[in-house]
């Protein structure tokens, strides 16, 4: 337990990190309790009250179909965070597994798997996601798949490094000497030892996942309207930018705040877990 | 050997000021180094030896390290009061330093020759061609073939890297060479070679040396005078013969007692009980008293002064002893 207390103490040493931790917590609470906080449904249209600037009844104004932007932002935030976290965890878990197995077996197996990953990484990440999304089609699940697949090779590569050095440690040799089955070695000895960097990776990649999903939705390949996904909202609001800028600015700022706090906290987590950083 | 004093440290106090504690690394150190002499500073890790050496060249990181008081006289000037520009002229030129770990002391992306050249070009007004000649000379002096000028540090072994570091330090013929545990990171077999080479170069160039080490064998081999340092203070100082044959401070006695000897049969080695005190939390009175087997009441109350025992041999103790010891070489 002292491990966690230590981690927490180190995490909270920086004022900005603490501020963003609180900010992020508030944002998460807001989207989790969207049902209670949102004054309107995300799909409630009122044509008579469209294109309104931010006012008392509509904190962020309304869009061209009369929907309350603030409520849409809350529900959209829920979508983004969910997809972001799921995608990030999946990518890290699968990527780490592939990387660990590849590094553990070494030799030809490692070579082949890594060449395979190299091919994936020869395509710029956004492009790969776009290609996969184009092939699979639109929709939340397909978008998440596209983001996960395009992110796996990088995670595999990152997981591979520590495993390569662990592999030659003596306690692994000892486990092998008493005939421990391979998958058990990987599960009980290798994986726990790379947990810390994996946790850091997952935290850091949540924001990347959110950006990729929003980007794909912005381009029309991801989550489709009328879903209140932030990227889709930005795309829809584009045509009204000159006269009704809040349709773009509101979800944009929401995204900025979320990503900012997430990134700062992610950095803080990474620094707090880094044994080399002085206390 | 002339009796001219080259370097004179008086009452040096250095503290590291951290935000919730103050580490008292050096607590009133005074010593003198004569021209052409090798002065050994021996003590455990954490005793303050490196801090003193870095302090002489003013290489301590300014926050958090602070020189609280004291003076370091070199060629008639107080180094602690010099402006930075003047200090830069002295570093690498009149006073040089060799660090402990040769593996990380060299810039990985510069050729070894160029790294030595850098020192010359900084301090001497000569053309590049003449400077290169000097580099070749010093390379030969440390036993590295001149055609390896253009190679990079990773192409050399640890021992050879240390030779390059020594060449870098000596190329401007410094008056004083500070060697901070120069062989600790090397294999035992290489240690002897490197030490011998340092001795030769030093003799050839007529430099003095401040040799910092925790190894009494090295002291015996290389030094004329020795200072024993504990918890940031000199507890005993004298010639090598005096320290080895007339050991007086209980700490020094303890150090010798912890070394295995060839001629006495010993059942167990006798380490000194306890640990060096936390420099952020030093005890009142004599700093060694918590571990001293011969302590008196006064030792815990009042810190003893460095008292002359005769012939330049001093000891910081209320109850100095005279023990005979064989010099094991």
């Amino acid at each position, binding site marked *: 337990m002292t491990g966690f207390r230590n981690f927490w103490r180190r995490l909270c040493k920086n004022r900005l990190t603490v501020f963003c931790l609180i900010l992020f917590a508030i944002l998460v609470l807001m989207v989790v309790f969207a049902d209670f906080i949102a004054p309107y449904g995300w799909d409630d249209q009122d044509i008579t009250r469209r294109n309104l600037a931010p006012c008392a009844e509509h904190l962020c104004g309304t869009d061209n179909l009369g929907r309350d932007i603030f409520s849409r932002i809350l529900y959209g935030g829920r979508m983004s965070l969910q997809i972001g976290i799921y995608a990030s965890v999946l990518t890290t878990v699968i990527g780490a597994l592939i990387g660990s197995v590849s590094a553990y077996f070494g030799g030809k197996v490692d070579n082949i798997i890594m*060449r*395979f990953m*190299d*091919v994936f990484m*020869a*395509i*710029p*990440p956004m*492009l790969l996601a*776009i*290609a*996969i999304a184009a*092939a699979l*089609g639109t929709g939340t699940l397909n978008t998440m798949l596209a983001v996960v697949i395009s992110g796996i090779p990088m995670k595999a*590569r*990152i997981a*591979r*490094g520590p495993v390569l050095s662990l592999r030659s440690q003596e306690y692994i040799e000892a486990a092998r000497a008493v005939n421990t089955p391979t998958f058990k070695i990987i599960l009980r000895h290798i994986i726990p030892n790379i947990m810390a960097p994996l946790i850091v990776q997952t935290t850091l990649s949540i*924001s990347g996942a959110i950006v990729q999903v*929003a*980007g794909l939705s*912005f*381009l*029309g*390949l991801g989550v489709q309207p009328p879903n209140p996904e932030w*990227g889709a909202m*930005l*795309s829809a609001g*584009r045509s009204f*930018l*000159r006269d009704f800028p809040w349709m*773009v*600015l509101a979800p*944009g700022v929401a995204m*900025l705040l979320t*990503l*900012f706090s*997430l*990134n700062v906290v992610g950095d803080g987590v990474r620094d707090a877990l880094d044994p080399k950083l002085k206390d | 050997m002339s009796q001219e004093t080259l370097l004179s440290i008086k009452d040096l106090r250095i503290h590291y000021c951290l935000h919730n504690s103050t580490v008292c690394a050096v607590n009133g150190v005074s010593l003198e180094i004569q021209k052409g002499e090798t002065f050994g500073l021996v003590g455990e890790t954490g005793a303050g030896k490196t801090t003193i050496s870095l302090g002489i*060249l003013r290489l301590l990181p300014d926050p958090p390290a602070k020189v609280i008081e004291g003076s370091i006289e070199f060629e008639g000037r107080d180094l602690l009061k010099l402006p930075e520009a003047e200090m*830069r002229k002295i*570093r*690498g*030129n009149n006073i*040089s*330093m060799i*660090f402990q*770990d040769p593996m*990380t*002391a*060299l*810039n*990985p*992306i510069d050729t070894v020759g160029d790294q030595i050249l*850098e*020192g010359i070009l*900084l*301090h001497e007004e000569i053309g590049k061609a003449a400077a290169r000649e000097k580099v070749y000379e010093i390379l030969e002096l440390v036993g590295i073939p001149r055609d390896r000028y253009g190679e*990079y540090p*990773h192409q050399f072994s640890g021992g050879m890297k240390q030779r390059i570091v020594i060449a870098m330090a000596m190329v401007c013929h410094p008056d004083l060479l500070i060697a901070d545990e120069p062989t600790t990171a090397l294999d035992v077999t290489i240690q002897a070679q490197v030490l011998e080479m340092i001795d030769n170069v030093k003799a050839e160039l007529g430099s003095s040396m401040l040799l910092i080490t925790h190894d009494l064998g090295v002291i015996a081999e290389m030094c004329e005078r020795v200072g024993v340092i504990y918890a940031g203070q000199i507890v005993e100082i004298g010639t090598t013969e005096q320290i080895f044959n007339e050991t007086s401070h209980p700490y020094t006695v303890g150090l010798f007692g912890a070394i295995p000897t060839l001629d006495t049969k010993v059942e167990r080695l006798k380490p000194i009980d306890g640990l060096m005190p936390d420099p952020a939390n030093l005890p009142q009175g004599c700093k060694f008293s918590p571990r001293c087997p011969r302590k008196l009441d006064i030792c815990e109350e009042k810190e003893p002064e460095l008292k002359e025992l005769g012939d330049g041999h001093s000891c910081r103790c209320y109850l100095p002893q005279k023990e005979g010891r064989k010099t094991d070489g």
Partner: protein
Amino acid sequence: MLKFIVKRILTMIPVMLGVSLLVFVILEMAPGDAAESILGEYADEQNLEALRDEMGLNDPLLVQWGRYVSDIVLKGDLGTSYKTGMSVTQSIFERYPTTMLMAFLGVIVTALLGITTGIISAVKQYSIWDNLATVFGMIGVSMPSFFSGLVLVFIFAQKLQWLPASGNYGWSYYILPVLTISLTSCATQMRMTRSSMLEVMRQDYIRTARAKGQTERKIILHHQLRNALISIITVIGTQAGILLGGTMIVEQIFAIPGVGKLLMDSISYRDYPMVRGGVLLLALSFSIVNLLVDLVYAAVDPRIRSQFSSGQKRRNTLRGKERSV
């Protein structure tokens, strides 16, 4: 050195082959096929089958892929567009210079701005400049290009009317798009430069240089910066890939007729030969950029030169977070 370059170029070949196969496979999963796209949705099943046979669409995947690759290598033919009937190669190469120019300018702006601010930030650590730069850097990293692009358009094109919002009829049309793609990369570059410089600052050889009596300025430029350059260049390489991907979004926002926009349009028209060709070309460009980055590595770091002349491949470990020294 030459041996190293040749070796690197040779390793690109199987990777590019792999990429072409990967793209082929991915697009195979897409709904609808060539015959449908050409003849339309309501075409006769018989006609569709006939066309499929004629186009070789019923052959096994690997055969189709083999044909595709040999066409490229032997004839430079990337296929024909389903929509326009024009040569894919021609269509793409018409637009390639535009995209490349934007990406190139993006890299230059990122490198210049990012590296300079990073160095200043590191050298004046904890000062007001450093803190400002850190916060702005964080904001930059947290603002995706599609948002910053729209904000820039709003401020500079619509409200202030200083710069054009779309098209590319002159050099001023490039300003906003380049700024958009550079913003995030710049921020990342600055943070990486800062942390590299700080890490190098802690190294022993910096202390050695100081002990020689070297001036602070020379230490920063000659010792610190050159050693930090390796990490900095790595980041430029990664950012180049992101910038290439970013051109797609930016070309959409600013209606710039580049490869990215062509790709997006082709996706919505299901014009798969065009999509294949576009992705392949962008991937090739990315690989060439990585090759150049590796060459710069070798030029800057003598350790890498020795490793490659002895035949070992450490490129992968260097590109990741681990470095062997």
